[in-house]
């Protein structure tokens, strides 16, 4: 079944846009910070610099884009009304921006009071956000795969930030906080729960609608949220402090579920009805390829001793246990998967929202500009190429650290170009909105 969208309850256009326009700024900050840090920055995932960079990407770039998209998506896809969406956005958005900046700064400077303040701001902002978005989602009249995915995703967001806040308490010296175990569970719920389920739920709409593919199979929509939720609950068993031999198999099951989503998406895209080049399609394919590469790399990691080795051939490949390997998996996940697909979605959502809001303003008397005039196609293609070059450079920099500065600058430049492209879409909206208002004022009695 192909999805239907309703725009009667859509929030004001600036509600999602303030989040969308902020997301690339965190990418720019991450790229510049990486360039400033230099060759040692990518040596391990546990260095203060790596933790700061990770949170600029996941709680900065990704969370901004995802929070904005969900505020737009719940009313139009689920038919649910978000309570005071404008007020929620104007409180949550600045609190998240300041909170993530303080958190990243705290990782670099040490877990002082500002670090705690940043974590507290994020938890407060997200608690308010989840209360409003979760209430709308759980009261939504619509049913189906997307709603289930979004509900479990929001639940996973709560688990993620509660564990994250617990980690900040542990880093500030609170006794009895098992930092390593909580970090593993925090990362899994954030990436495999909140991020991947939100991506899948939105993809069920956006991929068939904008890429003209067949609909996602019903079985995937049922399997993914409940399967991932089961995996994440079992994965959280390590919080008890006991080591379970079956944990590697749980991780493997989760990776297989994520891989199934990637393979089905690539398969649907291969069956698309209109075979014309499309930036969003290419970015999505790059994202799914990155996800599959990250999964293969993670499977290899858990197959290496001292973890239970179920693939004998891996036992001699000791480089898989090197700390750089985990950094490469992170780059594939954050930049390769999520930045790629978020960029691809923004390149469709922003022109589409521009068009819809302008159409509602102008009625049948002033038709809005064509979708293709909202963001220049050449600018999107150029930015996409730079993004993939930056991704390749970041991956090479893991193995050859002298490239780190250039890779950071390339990534900052690709995010800056994304910001510029989104701003050009906003400029088109504002110019045309002003023309519609001027025309209406001229014809007013």
């Amino acid at each position, binding site marked *: *079944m*192909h*999805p*239907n*969208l*309703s*725009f*009667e309850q859509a929030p004001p256009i600036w509600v999602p846009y303030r989040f969308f326009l902020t997301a690339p700024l965190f990418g720019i900050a991450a790229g510049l910070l990486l360039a400033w840090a230099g060759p040692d920055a990518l040596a391990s995932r546990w260095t203060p610099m790596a933790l700061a960079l990770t949170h600029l990407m996941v709680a900065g770039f990704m969370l901004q884009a995802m929070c904005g998209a969900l505020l737009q998506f719940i009313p139009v896809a689920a038919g649910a009304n978000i309570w005071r969406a404008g007020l929620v956005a104007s409180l949550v958005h600045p609190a998240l921006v300041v909170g993530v900046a303080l958190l990243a700064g705290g990782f670099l400077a040490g877990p002082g009071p500002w670090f705690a303040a940043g974590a507290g701001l994020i938890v407060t902002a997200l608690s308010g956000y989840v209360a409003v978005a979760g209430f709308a989602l759980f009261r939504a009249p619509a049913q189906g795969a997307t709603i289930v995915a979004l509900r479990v995703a929001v639940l996973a967001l709560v688990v993620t930030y509660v564990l994250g806040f617990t980690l900040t308490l542990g880093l500030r010296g609170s006794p009895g906080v098992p930092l390593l175990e909580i970090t593993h569970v925090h990362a899994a719920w954030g990436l495999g729960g909140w991020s991947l389920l939100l991506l899948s739920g939105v993809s069920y709409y956006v991929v*068939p*609608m*904008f890429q*003209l593919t067949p609909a996602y199979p019903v079985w995937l929509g049922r399997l993914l949220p409940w399967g991932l939720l089961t995996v994440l609950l079992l994965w959280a068993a390590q919080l008890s402090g006991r080591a379970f031999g079956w944990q590697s198999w749980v991780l493997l099951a989760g990776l297989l579920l994520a891989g199934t989503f990637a393979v089905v998406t690539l398969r649907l895209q291969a069956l698309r*009805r*209109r075979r014309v080049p499309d930036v969003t399609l290419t970015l999505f394919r790059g994202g799914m390829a990155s996800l599959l590469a990250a999964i293969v790399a993670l499977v290899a990691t858990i197959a290496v001793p001292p973890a239970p080795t179920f693939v004998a051939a891996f036992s001699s490949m000791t480089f898989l246990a090197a700390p750089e390997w985990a950094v490469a998996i992170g780059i594939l996940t954050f930049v390769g998967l999520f930045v790629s697909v978020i960029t691809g979605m923004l390149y469709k959502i922003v022109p*589409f929202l521009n*068009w*819809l809001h302008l*159409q509602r303003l102008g*009625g*049948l008397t002033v*038709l809005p500009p*064509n*979708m293709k005039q909202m963001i220049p196609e050449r600018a999107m293609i150029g930015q996409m190429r730079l993004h993939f070059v930056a991704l390749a450079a970041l991956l090479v920099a893991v193995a050859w650290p002298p490239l780190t500065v250039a890779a950071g600058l390339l990534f900052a430049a690709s995010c800056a170009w994304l910001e510029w492209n989104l701003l050009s879409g906003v400029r088109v909206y504002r110019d045309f909105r002003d023309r519609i208002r001027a025309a209406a004022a001229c014809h007013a009695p």
Partner: protein
Amino acid sequence: MSSQRVIDGRDMQPPEPLEQTLAALDTLPPDGEIVLLLYCQPHPLYQILRRNGYAWTETMQADGTTEIHIRKA
């Protein structure tokens, strides 16, 4: 004799079917009809039609196509 214009939006990216339908409404003769073919129900279009004095009927075909007939009310 009434004129009929068919817009097959099934292989178009949104909002191209809406763009073409709105352009066709401008030149729709009083007894004319627009037939729009889509794989979804275009709620934004229905809002526009409702506000601007058009009537429509929709039927679902076996292959999942929604066939929408639009006329002046």
